[in-house]
């Protein structure tokens, strides 16, 4: 559990972050969202004390982090950034092993952990001997994520980790991160300016504007009950309804009456179902039955809910 309590950071007279308080429960994926200069990165970097707050405090599992030795704290927290920052003179295995070696794990366990992580991120075990400049941008960021996870940290901080990647690689890595979050149950704080990325990944969203927390809550809440016009605009303005559809799955709205045609999967999002209806020029789509059950269908009116 991470508690931010009236967190403030000022540079001279200008407040980069002012009076931000929210709590992220254990195992929750929290996206910190805002436009450039909203203080989202500063907020994140105060959690591993790369920046010291001017006022306020942060507690991890009840412990005030200001009282902990700073390097020890950082070694307990995974950290991945947009520029990746792999050490160019170390091979991939040594890069991943950075924190375990700082924590003086026995070498055998370090090697075992490196192999585990390469497998977890679906990377070729032979990649361990390669150097960062030999890898593509997507591979480098996978290694960056593996390195952040290496010492099995309680918390993972990610600062726009996929911001510099092409859309296809970014999508693949988001899916990867989502899977890792589900399988490891880590608490993740993820900074992004991309609201779609936040909607796709996060359990809760902290929306910042000019250093202040505007709204904090589950994605659906920000979509359906935006605190003000800024939130509404940031969440998508006119396309807000479509983003809402993207959060729900066909399986929740399926009705038993069968219709002919190629069935869609029940995990399909409502947004994709709507897209299919437009493409197929129909107001009702067949839906494949769950595990052996009979096929059902979903109609245009079901989307509205």
């Amino acid at each position, binding site marked *: 559990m991470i508690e931010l309590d009236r967190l403030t950071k000022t540079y001279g007279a200008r407040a980069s972050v002012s009076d931000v308080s929210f709590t992220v429960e254990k195992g929750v994926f929290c996206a910190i969202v805002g436009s450039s200069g909203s203080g989202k990165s500063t907020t994140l970097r105060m959690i591993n004390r790369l920046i010291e707050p001017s006022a306020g405090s942060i507690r991890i599992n009840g412990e005030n982090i200001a009282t902990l030795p700073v390097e020890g704290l*950082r070694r307990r927290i995974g950290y991945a*950034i947009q520029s990746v*920052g792999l*050490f*160019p*003179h170390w091979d991939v295995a040594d890069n991943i092993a950075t924190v375990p070696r700082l924590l003086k794990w026995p070498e055998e366990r370090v090697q075992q952990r490196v192999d585990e992580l390469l497998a977890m991120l679906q990377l070729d075990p032979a990649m361990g001997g390669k150097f960062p400049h030999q890898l593509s941008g997507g591979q480098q960021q996978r290694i960056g994520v593996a*390195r952040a996870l290496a010492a099995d940290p309680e918390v993972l901080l990610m600062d726009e980790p996929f911001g510099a990647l092409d859309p296809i690689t970014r999508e693949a890595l988001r899916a990867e991160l989502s899977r890792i979050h589900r399988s490891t149950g880590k608490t993740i704080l993820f900074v992004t300016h991309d609201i779609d990325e936040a909607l796709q990944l996060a359990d809760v969203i902290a929306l910042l504007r000019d250093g202040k927390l505007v709204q904090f809550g589950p994605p659906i809440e920000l979509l359906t009950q935006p605190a003000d016009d800024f939130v509404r605009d940031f969440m998508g303005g006119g396309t807000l309804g479509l983003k809402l559809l993207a959060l729900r799955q066909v399986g929740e709205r399926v009705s038993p009456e069968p219709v002919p045609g190629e069935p869609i999967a029940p995990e399909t999002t409502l947004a994709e179902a709507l897209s299919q209806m437009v493409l197929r020029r129909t107001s009702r789509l067949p839906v494949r039955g769950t595990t052996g059950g009979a096929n059902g269908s979903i109609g245009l009116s079901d989307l509205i809910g």
Partner: protein
Amino acid sequence: MMPRHRVLFVLILAAIAGCALGGFVSEAPNRLVSGHSIMLWQAGPSVSLWLTIWAAALLLLSFVPGRRSPAVAALIIGAGTLLLLIFDAGHTAAALMASAPSAARVSLGWAFWASGFCLAMIVIDALQRLRAGHLLSLAVVLILIAAIAVFAVLGTFDALSLAREYAARHAEFAKELGRHCMLVAIAVVLAVAIGAPLGLYVARQPGRSTGIFGALNLLQTIPSVALFGLLIAPLSALGIGGIGAVPAIIALVLYSLLPVVRNTEAGISGVDPGVIDAARGMGLTPTQILWRIELPLGMPVFLAGLRIVTVQAIGLTIVAALIGAGGLGSFVFQGIGQYAIDLVLLGALPTIALALAADFILALLAAFFERSPHD
């Protein structure tokens, strides 16, 4: 018809022109007067004939199309011709001295230096065209040095004035060579010991850089003779003595500081800020970041600075002889004083060789650091 390899073509023409315009060796009745030139074609048929044949081969080679084979041929023939030229110089001197009084001197002439330089450039050009790595270049240089050493041991050069200057002073030569190397080594070690921490400080406090670099730049603009002279008065006042090794080393260190500080600073500041951010975020201590990240990544730039400083110090140490610090410069200034050019060369040639050797070794080291993360 146009030559295929213009560099080779121009170099060999320049070598031939050098041989036509100046004497191959010059013969003088004693070491202090200037002698009369003996042209290459006057040096005896065996000398001129073979050199002509080899030069013609190189000239023809510049018209041969292709990349690799002509370069290999130019490398072998160029190196061979260079050795032949050096051998012939000694051989010609021996032939002349056989019939001359023992006070007579035979010195190397313009034709020798010009064509020798052009042939060395032909070898270097061929190595570059072959994209030779450091190992092949090193092998070629070592073979050339070994061949010249064999000539020297066999007495090929004994009749040359340069060799006779050496023979008259070989104990002194070994002492001054050792002293020269020692002065350079102490100065470079001190410059690194002072300059590297200073460079690190400047990298950490960019605000302070203007003043420090300003002062170091100013030092560089003082002419070396003037700096050696300027140190005499204050050091005498301190009781250290204004002449000898100490002021020489101080001056050499002062000159060496700027490149060391600048390259240390550039090496450290050149490390990708994302790498440093990641290192801090993962919990490396500032000391660990310095030793494991910043220093290894900044090393190639630092070594480039060390290379500049070492080569510069080897040359500057010549001037240090003026204030009684010794070193190879003492031969140079004795030679100038006596108007004995071969004595000047006895000091100057080993200095050039030292500078080239230091440059090559440090380039090799830098290449090792550049390449190691890629293997």
